[in-house]
């Protein structure tokens, strides 16, 4: 157990350190800004990876949880003038309560029925954002969301926000790695493989599935909180079905079998459109072709793909996990 703790701690620390080194190299607010969005996306997809890869459940409603988190903190800080320190726990709490209540009936469904149900819930939340005009500003959205102030430092530029977001990425990763390596993680794997067997062996499957669903919604709300105080403007378009589908695609492209797959898939699909700006109008076609090629060539995801040796920094033989 202790070994797990230290390794997952060091892995998370590696990711954080790597990110900060990268930021120091890049030193351009545009690129740093993209990496901030990457960090937010990773926070969501880590949760989704736990849900899809470990608990074997799909959710096409993650954008809605992302949105509830963002809107809650946005509304509380702008309309009610609450400090961020208060709106933060409230936005997470509200999201996971919603996830808990709708998770109970929803997670009884399977496969495409579950996909449709989560999709439907996501759409309903999206409609509510559009229609509750006095609170949400409707389709036009609302702005002037205050910045975060932490330990007396206002996170008013991309660099400061970058460090804040990636520190949270590291914490989320650390938590998730520990969950995977715990008894709970093994039980989850069992559900994914053989739900009935797991159930007869005394695993409370529905409670576990619900817990992971709620956890993943909490991660999405966390990312939503970060989004709201970074962009400082919210409108429903950001939290649409398209984004939910993109998140699932990120996890699948990276490889559902492993949490690192989510990191890889998210990184590739977040950075790709920015690289493709070079191709102007052709970007959408090239994006589609790359996506389809990845899935045909690597149906199980990019995770574990052999990178040509010359691209990799030398690592010690036998270093595997």
């Amino acid at each position, binding site marked *: 157990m202790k070994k797990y703790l230290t390794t997952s701690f060091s*892995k998370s620390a*590696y*990711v954080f350190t*790597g*990110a900060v080194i*990268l930021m120091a*190299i*890049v030193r*351009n*607010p*545009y*690129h740093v*800004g*993209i990496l901030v*969005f990457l960090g937010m996306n990773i926070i969501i997809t880590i949760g989704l990876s736990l849900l899809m890869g470990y608990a074997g459940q799909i959710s096409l409603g993650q954008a809605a949880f992302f949105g509830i988190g963002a809107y809650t903190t946005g509304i509380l800080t702008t309309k009610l003038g609450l400090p961020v320190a208060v709106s933060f726990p409230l936005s997470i709490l509200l999201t996971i309560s919603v996830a808990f209540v709708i998770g109970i009936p929803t997670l009884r469904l399977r496969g495409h029925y579950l996909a449709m149900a989560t999709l439907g819930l996501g759409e309903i939340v999206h409609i509510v954002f*559009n*229609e509750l*005009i006095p609170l949400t500003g*409707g*389709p*036009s*959205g609302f*702005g002037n969301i205050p910045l975060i102030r932490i330990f007396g430092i206002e996170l008013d530029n*991309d660099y400061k926000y970058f460090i804040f977001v990636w520190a949270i990425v590291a914490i989320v990763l650390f938590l998730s790695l520990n969950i995977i390596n715990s008894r709970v993680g093994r039980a989850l794997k069992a559900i994914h493989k053989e739900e009935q067997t797991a159930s007869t062996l005394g695993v409370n499957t529905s409670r576990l599935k619900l817990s992971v669903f709620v956890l993943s919604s909490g991660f999405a709300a966390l990312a939503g909180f970060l989004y709201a105080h970074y*962009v*400082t*403007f919210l*409108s429903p*378009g*950001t939290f649409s079905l398209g984004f939910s589908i993109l998140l699932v695609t990120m996890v699948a492209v990276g490889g559902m079998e*492993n949490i*690192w797959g989510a*990191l*890889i898939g998210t*990184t*590739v699909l977040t*950075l790709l*459109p*920015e*690289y493709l*700006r070079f191709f*102007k*109008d052709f*970007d*959408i076609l090239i994006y589609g072709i790359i996506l389809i090629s990845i899935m045909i060539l690597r149906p199980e995801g990019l*995770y574990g*793909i052999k*990178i040509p040796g010359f*691209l*990799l*920094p030398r*690592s*010690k033989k036998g*270093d*595997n*996990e």
Partner: protein
Amino acid sequence: MKRVMAILTILIAFSAASCLEAKDKKQSYKIGGVFAITGPASFLGEPERNTMLMIVDMVNAQGGINGVPLEAFIEDSVGDETKAVNAVKKLINSDKVLAIIGTTRSGTTMAVIPIVEKAETPLISCAAAETIVNPVRKWVFKTPQLDRHAADRIYGTMRDRGISRVAVMSATTGFGSAGREQLQNLAQTYGMKIVADETYGPKDTDMTAQLTKIKGTNAQAVVNWSIVPAQAIVAKNMRQLGMTIPLYQSHGFGNIKYVEAAGSAAEGIIFPAGRLLAVDTVPDSNPQKKVLVEYKTLYESKFDDPVSTFGGHAWDATWILVEALKKAGADKEGIRKSIENTKGFVGTGGVFNFSKTDHCGLGPEAFEMLVVNNGKFVVLGQ
């Protein structure tokens, strides 16, 4: 460990790419454009992009601005806030532009305002919403007419025609809901009573249910506030239901192609628009006549596509910026000041008079009420 390495590799490739950005070759005035070239608002963004590039070519063909060539950097926002934020950051930080034209949609403009304000870079938006310039922000301007003025003109025309009970239809988009809000706010001023207030999704295929509800009221006219294709479907559906009350549309009806899409159901639609769409019926004495003809001829011959008022917003924005560059050169604060001091600029949208308190510069008279007559736009009342 291999996974960490894999991620690092991708990230290093990313940073390498970011270092590879072109270094300055020769001196030029760099200006940026962020438009929804793809995505749901692309039929607005595309003419805007085309127009901006066309003007840059024109300026450079005449030897640039004070001998310095103009260089345009165009980015696609896909009409998405996150992408627009990234695009604006790229233009400011990587391409080091002096000013930005765009974005296409109100939501994306609102999302990028904090960035341009902090980076102190002038932005001339092509989006409609009034909240962009109200309250006035130091670095943000816009060229499209205000929604409020469109609603003003619509209600004014209705009052002249003895209409006092209206049914409002609007799409659940930023444009639709902003218009709906203006219609609600101004109703009292014009003595209008809103007897039905219906909305629909921007991609809905049928609005007969909403219109049936309206048909059951005593409305004397319908105002529809949306963009294509919904505005064409509303016209078709009204015809199907045998509704004979007049249909008013917003200034989003600004392209003759929408008349084609709606077919004969478009006949008699009344809407406010810049004079660009009815340039043939604008009298020669109108100060705008010359620029309208010029833009229409240039655009239609170059792109083989009918002009739209949306491209016109980019025409106005780009020329205002070019004029500002002429006066101020490569100085952001100077550019901002000279945009703010622009007076009597004749554009496609109207005659612009910017000031410290008005960053739009157009009044209600910038709109002309047009009507669809035999498949063509003509000025109402002629």
